């Protein structure tokens, strides 16, 4: 009998695998036996890749269909590690200078694409009686961050979208959780200093594959079937609330 954290037979889609964190998580899932497809390029030979844009319901539907085609199975696991939309880098700027266009790009596009991705992946998970969503939500949404209010709003919105989805979809065997890494690990251009919290108890921000990967693998697995709506902080011991 395979271990409860074995992901053989599972098909997983990872967004944001063009960056270190998504790539690391995709590699960890593949290492646990899952078939893994990335949205966009991913520099890992075990990870397949599909193109697409989840910014519209149709686009998200296409992405799920292509991912399923590439996997040769249903998409059972969605790991949403895509950098919140907007500027590619998250250089802090004064709230007084945030334009409507920037607010739209960060808040609206991040939230809509996350919602569309969830909706597109839902039917097959419901029909299969098994589903796992894991959203990467850097801790700055819980701490707040000066100069990064739009980003914090978008990430916290994603985190609560996950909780609501967990509440509505639990009866179908679908769990929805978040992992919260150190901001500098998940968001290009954000330094730990900009959120001025404590130093990590474990002495480092962490490595996506080695430190975060096992946690995502666990949440994606059968072993975590009774964990939903949770946020696991995987930041080496910086943010410790509650």
């Amino acid at each position, binding site marked *: 009998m395979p271990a409860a954290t074995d992901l053989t037979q599972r098909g997983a889609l990872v967004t944001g695998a063009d960056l270190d964190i998504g790539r690391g998580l995709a590699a960890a899932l593949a290492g646990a036996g899952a078939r893994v497809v990335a949205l966009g390029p991913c520099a890992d030979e075990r990870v397949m890749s599909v193109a697409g844009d989840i910014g519209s319901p149709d686009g998200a539907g296409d992405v799920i269909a292509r991912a399923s085609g590439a996997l040769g199975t249903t998409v059972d696991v969605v790991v949403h590690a895509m950098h919140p939309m907007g500027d590619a880098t998250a250089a802090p700027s*004064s709230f007084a200078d945030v334009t409507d266009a920037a607010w739209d790009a960060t808040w609206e596009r991040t939230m809509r694409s996350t919602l569309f991705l969830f909706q597109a992946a839902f039917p097959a998970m419901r029909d299969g009686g098994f589903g796992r969503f894991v959203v990467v939500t850097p801790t700055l949404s*819980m701490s*707040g961050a000066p100069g990064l209010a739009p980003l914090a709003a978008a990430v916290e919105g994603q985190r609560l979208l996950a909780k*609501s989805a967990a509440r*509505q979809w639990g009866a179908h065997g679908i769990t929805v959780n978040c992992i919260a890494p150190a901001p500098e690990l998940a968001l290009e251009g954000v330094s730990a200093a900009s959120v001025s919290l404590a130093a990590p108890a474990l002495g480092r921000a962490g490595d996506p594959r080695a430190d975060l990967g096992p946690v995502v693998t666990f949440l994606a697995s059968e072993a975590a079937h009774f964990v939903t709506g949770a946020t696991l902080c995987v930041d080496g011991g910086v943010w410790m609330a509650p």
Partner: protein
Amino acid sequence: MTGLDGRVAIVTGAGQGVGRGIALAMAERGARVVIAARRAQTGDPVVDEISARGGEAVCIVTDVTRRDDVAACVDAAVARFGALHVMIHNAFRGGVAHRLEDAGADVWEQNSRTAVWGSFFCAQLAYPHLRDAGARGRLILVTSPAGVEGSANIPLYAPVKAAQRAIAKSLAREWGPHGITVNCIAPVAETPALAHAFASNPTLKERLEARTPLGRVGDAERDIGSVAAFLASDDAGYVTGQTIVCDGGSFTGL
């Protein structure tokens, strides 16, 4: 009672429900209050109520989803009363029950516009005046316990209310050096929306009261307005980035 003499406050969505309760409580303690309501038909009677009690208020018709409207409201407040110390964004439209898998762009839009875009506009446009107010500057966003615990009935309500908390925490950090405080209130109170829900679901009131340690639904002025007035006062000058849940003790997760 915590005094607000000399303070000028804008309260959005003050034509009814929680906003009205906050406006009444603020005025009762001496604040001059701008009733920012989407319709004068709801805003004017609140002004009359405040005037009848000897307070000072004015209604400015404002749609918080429009930047120009919020800008005009802020300008009118300053023109009328000479300053703006307190911005309280409470207005919300949405909250209609839905299934997440079926929610279309319209459901999303409805929840996002007033709560999140409204917070963005109210915070940004009030900021120059809050900065001038220094240690008296206050931004208060009215959120919901759903913004912390998620919602099985109105799933898209939770993320927009959560975003308000993240905005408040971020601005508390960003604006702290000016002395401005930024906080949230998460109320459960008697409002027209809740009355409507009670009417269409006869057992809801009973169930809500049964799960509430204090055994009743809050009163918008006495139970919620009083907390807003406290946060607006000098007494709360060292409280920032926080959410005060005013729900009779149902939610204890913070």
